[in-house]
């Protein structure tokens, strides 16, 4: 109990200041992927769409359609195509409009 009390004094307030200030722990969160259009070939797009477990990715012609709302941030796409996919680090994704969560990523060489 005493140790606990002293430790509390030494460490100070642990409560995050978010949303007033950024929270340091945010960078450890698993976050949805971000895509590099330069490296996103049609083959890579098809591969990641096939491997996505929650159906958040599918290719619509020359674009890769990415539904952030359906994404579970599992990281399989990043593992499959490490050149084309990386973690976005974005977690402030709440929105009042469902359609705002659907992103269209152009595929390299096929951009209209």
């Amino acid at each position, binding site marked *: 109990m005493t140790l606990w009390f002293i430790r509390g004094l030494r460490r100070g307030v642990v409560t995050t200041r978010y*949303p007033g200030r950024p929270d340091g722990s945010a960078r*450890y969160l698993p976050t949805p992927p971000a*895509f590099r259009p330069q490296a996103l070939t049609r083959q890579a797009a098809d591969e990641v769409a096939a491997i996505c477990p929650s159906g958040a990715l599918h290719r619509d012609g020359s674009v890769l359609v990415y539904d*952030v709302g*359906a994404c579970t941030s599992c990281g399989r796409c990043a593992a499959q195509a490490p050149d084309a996919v*990386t973690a976005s680090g974005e977690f*402030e*994704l709440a*929105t009042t409009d*469902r359609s705002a969560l659907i992103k269209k990523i152009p595929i390299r060489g096929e951009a209209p």
Partner: protein
Amino acid sequence: MAEDARTVERAAELRADIARQFGRSLHIRTLDTGSCAVCEQEIRLLTAPHYDLHRLGFFFTPAPRHADLLLVTGPMIRAFAVAARKTYDAMPGPKVVVATGACALGGVYPADPFTYGTVDAVLPVDVWIPGCPPSPLALLHGLGVAVGRLAEKVRDLPFTAADYPERSRGDS
């Protein structure tokens, strides 16, 4: 699309209303419509010392009669639709529905004879919080969006890597 526009307009009005009336005391009723309980764990973490939801004036209540905000998790199984509807009806207005997690947003389960697959099929959702599960920080952000105290910027997020700096953290 006209309906969508109206919905968006209504949601904006609602948020303004909530921000005015419940800026510092907003009561949350959570509703589990068939989730795997991970979302619930994250929601529960909101009351932990690190996040301390109450400092922002949010409180959990067990009775929808006292609730202003309905925090829905899970893919909305069909057996639960009546209860969800009753819960929503029992809440006094103005009220806001927040769909939480990929299941609730329609990501994980397709509609089938047992689930609707998305909360939107039963309740008029005002705020969507993606994530599987959404972290407590994401939930805090979502609640802020719901009361109109945080701006949303999702529409402008491109999700192309050029806009994100390379991270030191190793997903590689």
